[in-house]
């Protein structure tokens, strides 16, 4: 089995890394606060937001995600629809709402050939509590993001979410990762 590729990230005091770290923590805060419109404003108009289905495969198969199926495969229109739905009075699955905590860590930033674009990978533990006493649901994932600077702001241009479970153990994805 060949080793995976390792490329060192930018040092943590690099301004671009600080910007990436700041972006992800602010984004998590917006999601946990259910500040949906603020979250949408962090997205690039051309956003691609994809969470492929993870599969359990033998070593050497070279593939552990389905190419033809995802949990999310979204653009700005469909993400807006999801937010619009959550803001109706009839999105029953989130009434009472989940209490979520997006725990973001292991943030690593890579420069690209373009000054105003960076690749950022991070680990995410999404903790989701529903109802009084149900056990806390956990979605564990890595994320590969591409951020683009537009004027003074960084915007999320693409995100690939690599869930760690082949079979999700949360009742639905009425939440965002």
């Amino acid at each position: 089995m060949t080793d995976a590729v390792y490329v060192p990230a930018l040092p943590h005091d690099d301004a671009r890394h600080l910007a990436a770290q700041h972006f992800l923590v602010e984004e998590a805060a917006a999601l946990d606060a259910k500040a949906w419109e603020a979250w949408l404003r962090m997205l690039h108009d051309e956003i691609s937001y994809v969470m492929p289905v993870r599969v359990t495969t033998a070593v050497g198969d070279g593939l552990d995600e389905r190419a033809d199926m995802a949990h999310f495969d979204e653009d700005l229109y469909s993400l807006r629809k999801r937010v619009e739905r959550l803001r109706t009075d009839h999105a029953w699955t989130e009434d009472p709402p989940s209490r979520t905590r997006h725990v973001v860590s292991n943030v690593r930033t890579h420069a690209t050939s373009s000054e105003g674009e960076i690749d950022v990978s991070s680990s995410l533990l999404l903790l989701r509590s529903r109802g009084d006493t149900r056990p806390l649901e956990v979605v564990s994932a890595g994320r590969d993001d591409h951020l683009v600077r537009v004027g003074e702001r960084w915007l999320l241009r693409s995100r690939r979410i690599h869930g760690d479970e082949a079979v999700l153990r949360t009742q639905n994805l009425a939440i965002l990762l």
Partner: protein
Amino acid sequence: MTVDGSIDAIAASIAEGMVPAYVYSDPAVFAVEREQVFRRSWVFLAHESEIAAPGDYVVRRIVDDSLIVVRDEAGAVRVHFNMCLHRGMQVCRAEVGNAAVFRCPYHAWSYRNDGTLAGLPFHDDAYGGEAVLARDEHRLLPPAQVETYNGLIFVCLSPDTPPLREYLGDFAYYLDLYTRHSASGIELHGPQRWRINANWKIGCENFVGDMYHTPFTHRSVVDIDLFREPKANKRKEGVVYFAGKGGGTTYKLPAGDFRERMRYVGYPDEMIARMAKAWTTSQHRLVADDGFMVSAATAFPNLSFVHNWPQVRSDGNVVPFISLRQWQPVSATETEVLSWFAVDAEAPDGFKRDSYRAYLMCFGSSGMFEQDDVENWVSITSASRGSMARRLLLNSRMGLDRNGAELSPPLEHFAGPGTARAGFGEFNQRNWLTLWASHLTGGPLRERHEPSEGRR
């Protein structure tokens, strides 16, 4: 609890349209279901398009039985029990892949993808070679019956159940409407898999005929203009049908001929032409003359279908999608949902892409329809666990008067087979539950406690 006594009581209550609430969480009921429903029904495992090339396999389950569904080197679809003949290790621990040989990681017994034993270490020294242990007489255990319909691979663990086509009966007519849009048939993508704390029956009942929940449960998707059809006044114009081993719901389409009505749902002309060719005159008439379009459905026991046509862009155009889903029981109170996207293999690439997008927005793990369904089902399962639920018979009598007579008769004119009824009613759920109860009371299976399949 004596199983027979209480199962008979459940069946008697179901016959009255009253469902004992505890059947949605009772472990004793689940133990009977495991034997009587899942061992004697034809259960869907996979579609041929998921294993297109020789060696392609997927691993699927029927309750606790792990089964490898594989295309062998000669191109035949095979199903093997995923357990080594020697010490019982699972010979395949991946979920999907391609293999010429499945090799047990314990002692390295190896099986060709057609199931036959290819090799074992020290065959001569340890076993006395072919003279004692002939490899071609040993194969991974196949289930009692394997058959396909429109490329859908079904397995039955009992040899006593009638052949698949006979089992499905007239439901096959409706199955075609989801899975035969051209001579090439569908291709299946996925599945998404996730586990919900809900009893497996609730999803089956919902998809088999619950038009009544749509306007309220799914109100948010109407609010945001994703799918306009579920408005209550529109939904009740549809019919529910029940035929053979399944039933489903339909929407009433606006006036028009076959092509106009298929266009309304969002199919491009080239696909409409292929459907017109692939469907029988009667299937064609269901749309062209009666104006009904299939939506949700369930084939007993746990395979469901859905066909909707949401708006996936701001341009106002709708795009239809089809999903197959299986409610795979894990326990009395937990279900693994497997949800696939299905599309005609001959459909244009642009349509496939848009239809996939429509599916993701509406159904599956993140679908905006499905999210609210699952919330209901988890809550029902949870509420059914306690002692109060043991007292409660849930009212599933919609469409019947106090004496059990039907409030309105079945349709006299309906192109499809089976019984069709307009408007809201729980006829289909009662039919599905009656099938379920008839399995539960169906007596013991013949070969139940006699292991006899291994070879010396």
